[in-house]
């Protein structure tokens, strides 16, 4: 056996205070009011969710705000079974790429409101193409968790 050399243990904890800027601040304020805001590009006409201050395609300023639909279509999903440090929820939980009606991109959030303990049932309820609707948290903190999850519609 080769000798096991020593290791040193040290934990790094660092505080940050991130600036969200005007567009993301307004987006989160909107969530508090149970509204999902996107911004529309005057040049390419695309609506982006979450709202942002400049177009990723055209590099134009975005100042046209849109209160977008809270229903959409699931583009993709997965059921997370493995846990790791720093996860917001305990597995099992479902993630989805959601395309809200009338917008031009997908965004990522939880899929919920169904029994996630049985994979067979999950596969019956969640599929790419499934219609979903935002379910709001009673308690609002102007952050992404003001939307609790997106629930599959029957």
């Amino acid at each position, binding site marked *: 056996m080769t000798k096991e050399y020593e290791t040193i243990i040290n934990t790094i904890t660092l505080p940050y205070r991130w600036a969200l800027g005007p567009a993301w601040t307004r987006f989160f304020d909107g969530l508090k009011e149970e509204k999902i805001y996107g911004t529309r590009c005057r040049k390419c006409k695309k609506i*982006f969710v979450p709202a942002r201050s400049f177009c990723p395609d055209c590099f134009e300023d975005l100042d046209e705000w849109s209160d977008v639909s809270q229903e959409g279509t699931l583009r993709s999903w*997965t059921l997370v079974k493995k846990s790791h440090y720093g996860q917001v929820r305990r597995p099992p939980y479902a993630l989805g790429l959601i395309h809200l009606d009338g917008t031009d991109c997908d965004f990522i*959030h939880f899929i919920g409101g169904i029994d996630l303990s049985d994979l067979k049932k999950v596969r019956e309820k969640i599929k790419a193409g499934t219609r979903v609707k935002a379910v709001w948290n009673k308690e609002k903190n102007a952050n992404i968790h003001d939307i609790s999850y997106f629930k599959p519609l029957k």
Partner: protein
Amino acid sequence: MGKAVAIIGTGQTKHGRRNDVSYPELVREAVKAALEDAGLTPKDIEGVVSGTMPSMMEGISDTHLYFADAICEVGKPVLKVETCGSTGQSIAHCGFYWVASGAADIVLVVGSEKMFEGDGQATMSTVADPWFLKPFSAGAPGVFTMQAMEWMHRFNIPEDKAREAAALISLTNHDNALNNPFAHIKITMTIEDAKNAFIITYPVRLLDVCPTSDGACAVIFASEEKAKKICKKPAWIKGVGFRGEEYFLGESNKSIWPSATEAAKHAYEQAGIKNPLKELDVAEVYNPFTYQEMIFYECFGFCPRGEGPDYVLKGTFTMKGELPCDPSGGVLCTNPIGASGLIRLAEAALQVTGKAGARQIDGAKLALSHAMGGIDQFNGVTIVGADL
């Protein structure tokens, strides 16, 4: 592309859990091997490029201080590049451009990661902002699995067929790793093992997913004049391509993955490759996830869109197939992230110079190497050939 550039030396560590050495000692192991392979000393190196995954992974953020002596950087110009998983291809391209510009004749490129020292999945969740993306991360598998599910849906690929093909990819890579003295995971497994393994993020299971590894890789780039003088059999750089994508996941169609497609196309144009499946002899595809590997095959033009599983199931990419992929066992069996993309290039160089030992593809003359990084954000490709 600038002036002609060759790879004249490569070095890898034995990858795996390497508590037996400090991080600088690990890095030096690869650098020393590359210098010996090229027949050079540190004095011959004119410039150094190095990178890891974002330095959060190391827990020591000035890696160029930590590795200063190990990468022979003292008294030399130094560059640091980090693009997550694609770091290995990014630093290689950096070394290539440096020599192709004519500003240096011999440049050392070093990639490394010592993942057993930290918490790999937790660190990976720090690559994204904590207010939009991080809350929904499930390590790397969450994002890559959703990409695979989207791909299956858009191309109407039956889940069972994709499952069968992913299991065969897992088996092929694990078998190949047994022939690679540097590989980390060396196990004998079956298709059934892959299909019944623990679910990480449905439908991705344990044997569909890469390990975390400690390891380093070093590659030495040289100008045509120096390469011809120093090296009996250099590997020539035939084409390089790299593309990035936007910030928010969900703005581009990852089932046809624009960055992977365009990076390969750019490299093929320079290398004069029109039919990659026929013209390439071997490919080292960055394959941390079996399902994702099939998307790469399609993006790289190895098969038509949506037909990845069919080509896999008929054995196209096995050691005896039409285009063997990852004879090294790939990222699926060895993943020191900051080194992984450079290992792909080193392996491709070994193949076209006939130095790949038990994993050699007979007579390989043209090889593709690749790496992917970030939240499906970056793709880099380098083509190497036996002839200038």
